[in-house]
């Protein structure tokens, strides 16, 4: 049945997961779908000035839905949410003084141009070590794929509805 099946197949694929800490099952697609649809309706409902700002909001909503459903166990989801929240509270926000007790571990930086690029791409990738980075990247990819499929299916649905409407517009006699 369309999207859900594809997502299911992807989710329960026979990929051997080498991560020893995969204890939680992958977030269910319906939860992501529900959350996203709700946010989408809200965004559309509020009269917004321009489609571009709406697009921004929708994109942020998509990212946040993804991050929420991934759960707080994942570093990338936490980092993504932090980034989104921070952006929302744009107005002057002083940096909290960092307590002295927090010991910042220095991560290996800039050794490999590819590694640096990966860190930049994956949210929250700056502070992780390499093994962890790869794990997070894998999970992030999975979630992104799911999100893309969801949005694509919504767009398809809407376009289909739209086309049906157009069709019925052309032949008004059929309906009435």
């Amino acid at each position: 049945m369309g999207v859900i099946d594809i997502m299911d197949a992807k989710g329960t694929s026979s990929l051997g997961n080498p991560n020893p800490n995969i204890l939680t099952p992958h977030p269910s697609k319906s939860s992501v779908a529900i959350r996203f649809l709700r946010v989408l309706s809200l965004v559309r409902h509020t009269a917004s000035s321009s489609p571009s700002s709406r697009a921004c909001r929708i994109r942020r909503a998509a990212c946040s839905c993804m991050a929420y459903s991934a759960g707080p166990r994942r570093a990338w989801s936490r980092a993504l949410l932090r980034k989104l929240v921070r952006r929302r509270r744009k107005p002057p926000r002083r940096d909290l003084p960092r307590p002295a007790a927090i010991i910042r571990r220095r991560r290996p930086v800039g050794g490999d141009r590819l590694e640096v690029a990966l860190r930049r791409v994956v949210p929250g990738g700056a502070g992780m070590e390499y093994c962890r980075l790869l794990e997070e990247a894998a999970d992030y990819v999975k979630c992104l794929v799911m999100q893309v499929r969801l949005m694509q299916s919504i767009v398809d649905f809407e376009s289909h509805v739209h086309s049906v409407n157009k069709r019925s517009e052309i032949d008004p006699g059929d309906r009435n």
Partner: protein
Amino acid sequence: MQQAPVSDLSVLERQRLHFDWQQQEQPSRHSYDADLCVRSLNSFTCFSNGLPDLAQYSMPVASNFEEAGVAASNCNPKRRKAESSPKSKVIINNSPKTETARILLHDQEHLCSVIYQQDESNCKRGKQERRSESRQQNNRKEASGDTSSYKNEEHPKADYIHVRARRGQATDSHSLAERVRELNSNSAPGALQFSCAFSSSLNFYQVRRERISQRMKYLQELVPGCSKITGKAGMLDEIINYVQSLQRQVEFLSMKLAAVNPLAADNNFSNCSMGISSEPMEQPFLHFNSLQAHPCSGLDMYMDSSSDLVPDGSSFVSCSALNYVAELVRGRIPAGERDSSLSISIISRESLA
């Protein structure tokens, strides 16, 4: 596998680790890596994840012990037993760069024995002090690889092999067991007895490389089209491109979703007024275009469209749209139940499919 109850977290009291390292006389002992000194571990005692900053338990080694396994001692003085005892607690250190969650593993089969010397003076200090000090020491050690501070302390005490759980990783016994087994399988394959002739740094990097290659393989399976590429650099490149393209797709789709205007096709909807009031509807997001613009939406129009879609199977959304509209029609769905009804419909749709 014996699991320590979480309340047993005061491991300091429970540390009675006795390892005799059989190859103590070997000259290359200084390069012993704590990782590999653990044989198959049957039982574990572990900390919960909630105490990441628990004291690092000291493993000062008799000889020059390199960075991998050492942490500060705990407060209880340990007796060093000359003979090997069957029960020993092992803390395996995975990597020097991991977070400071220490896990105690309990080894019932005494196969490998390690003799560590414990810093006698550390016992006297407070736990906090020692923790910070040990962390600093550890960091310093990691940075410099210098083991001199842990060499040949007064009494060799009970010994530990540390397993560090990485931050965020589960530290319950099952995952620990898994990890240790993975380590075991990664390192000296098939050998139950770890010879401590390996250089610690070599083994540590080997293990790390193994882990990295595992992750890369997993990523390779995830990313389409990566299976042909063999080099690590090429694969990384591919992965980065794929993630960037996915992000771009999300942006593009969100633009598309934002650009869809509420359908202006008012006339299409049959005026089968369902009694749906004209207040703005937040919930029927499945067909929110029309419903926002026109509170009265034709049920049959949607039924038709969904019947079109169903054999198509193009989208699960359509059927739940149908369900939802049906629910909406039958009775005014009270505000609180909208979400649940929709979710129920989606879920039922899913289960039927």
